[in-house]
């Protein structure tokens, strides 16, 4: 099915009764050229770019639950490319460029909204480090602007400029950053991949890998055995569990990150704001809810829900930045399981087993990376070697010392 104006008008007169399914519900075949484990944003994007850019035809995406039920539907929907290190910034800038053209590419309204991301700073030292990061962004082809306090006051007059402990001194602004409707990203990539013939199989959990002379040749699933030439794993917080079936131990801990939505309010926050003295980021959805989040809970978890201590901490951050938020009420909150890597940066690499590839370690920055992650992982799966932009995201960098530690925290995953 292809969405267009004509169809929209026709269905308008038709009481919306004849829309086809966004994607098929195909039967599982016996054999595929490439199988992607994990039907989240990254897995679906990988399948889409494999079919579209790398001309591979016989692809399946296996999802253990349902499309859009994992982290792709559990984040705070922010897109940006404001990293310091070259290894990261070039990659995320590529991702932002793909976001800018995404809706045409996948024929789906993902509500990509480049409303601007502002990082507020509170001290001279923090200003200097933000300027340095902004220069790093510009050197990699991204956009960055330094805002003084008057400029911020003109856009966000409600911030707490009188705060004695953490006065707002200015901000680093990326105009091209913004938000995207997250579940539409999953549905859109599923829709686009499906149109190119990718089989999306839901409720299909991989129970084991099948190996033959050092090569991964197939998968045992709850829907039977499937042969595969190549297998790509993109299962985020479940990476350690899945790869342990291949006797691999990963440089990853799984942690829970919570996200929050308030009741619907009239439009009040035009862009994305992040707090510099604590960990708090906020935007307003088109439905009016304030969407915000903060730190991970900080202990290993697979529970997809977090604790009150972190909720309190996040709300304190919100109150310190914009006291008016105290008048709104929390409507709902949820948790997602993050694959926190040991240096805070992702892994897109082959494994020591032929035909088995890994895409993991996104920490809590995976959503904005979705298009570039899919593209680079597809490149690796199709060509057998890394895309230039993901060539630093190696699995063996922890052994060799080529870490990409954006925050300089060391091997302490709950601090990244």
């Amino acid at each position, binding site marked *: 099915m292809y969405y267009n104006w004509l169809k929209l008008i026709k269905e308008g007169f038709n009481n919306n009764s004849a829309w086809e399914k966004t994607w098929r519900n195909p039967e599982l075949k016996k054999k595929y050229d490439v199988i992607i484990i994990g039907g989240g944003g990254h897995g679906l994007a990988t399948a889409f770019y494999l079919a579209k850019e790398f001309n591979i035809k016989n692809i399946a995406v296996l999802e253990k639950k349902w499309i859009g039920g994992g982290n792709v539907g559990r984040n705070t929907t922010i897109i940006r490319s404001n990293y310091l290190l070259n290894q990261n910034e070039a990659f995320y800038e590529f991702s932002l460029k793909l976001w800018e053209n995404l809706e045409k590419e996948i024929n789906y309204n993902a509500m990509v909204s480049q409303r601007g991301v502002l990082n507020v700073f509170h001290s001279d030292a923090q200003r200097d480090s933000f300027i340095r990061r902004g220069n790093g962004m510009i050197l990699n082809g991204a956009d960055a602007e330094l805002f003084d306090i008057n400029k911020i006051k003109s856009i966000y007059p409600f911030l707490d400029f009188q705060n004695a402990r953490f006065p707002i001194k200015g901000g680093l602004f990326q105009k091209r950053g913004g938000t995207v409707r997250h579940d539409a990203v999953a549905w859109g990539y599923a829709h686009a991949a499906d149109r190119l013939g990718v089989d999306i199989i839901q409720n299909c959990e991989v129970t084991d890998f099948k190996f033959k002379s050092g090569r991964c040749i197939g998968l045992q699933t709850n829907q039977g055995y499937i042969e595969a030439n190549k297998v790509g794993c993109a299962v985020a917080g479940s990476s*350690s569990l899945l790869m342990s079936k291949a006797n691999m*131990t990963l440089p990853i801990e799984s942690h829970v990150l919570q996200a929050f939505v308030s009741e619907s309010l009239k439009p009040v926050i035009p862009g994305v704001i992040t707090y510099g003295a604590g960990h708090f980021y906020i935007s307003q959805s088109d439905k009016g809810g304030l969407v915000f989040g903060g730190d991970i809970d900080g202990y*290993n978890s697979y*529970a997809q829900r977090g604790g009150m201590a972190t909720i309190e901490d996040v709300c304190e951050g919100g109150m310190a930045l914009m006291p008016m938020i105290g008048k709104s009420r929390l409507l709902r909150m949820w948790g997602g399981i993050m694959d926190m890597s040991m240096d805070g940066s992702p892994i897109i690499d082959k494994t020591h087993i032929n035909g088995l590839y890994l895409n993991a370690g996104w920490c809590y920055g995976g959503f904005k990376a979705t298009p570039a992650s899919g593209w680079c992982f597809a490149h690796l799966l199709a060509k057998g070697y890394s895309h230039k932009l993901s060539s630093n995201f190696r699995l063996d960098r*922890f*052994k060799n010392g080529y870490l990409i530690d954006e925050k300089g925290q060391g091997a*302490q995953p709950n601090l990244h």
Partner: protein
Amino acid sequence: MIIEHPLLGPRDIHEFVYVGDASLLNRPKWDSKDAEQKFYEYMYLRKNPAGIHQELWFHQQGDRSWLVVSRNTLTHEIVKVDLVSNIVKEMNL
């Protein structure tokens, strides 16, 4: 979450700092032949189980003792809490 401290009784996790997998207590020997590989595994690789996980918590806002907490990562239920000093004695380090 409430951690049942062996000496102080039930304490809120606000008072603690989470450090990570209790395997961090088993520091490899620096002079062994495979020290390089062993330290790589010690430093960077984690079993990361879904289920009972033995982990280190530091009572920073309390008596500054180190605890080994056995906790279910699927439910957050804490099943056992020990003082690191006792565990280390048992490990015979």
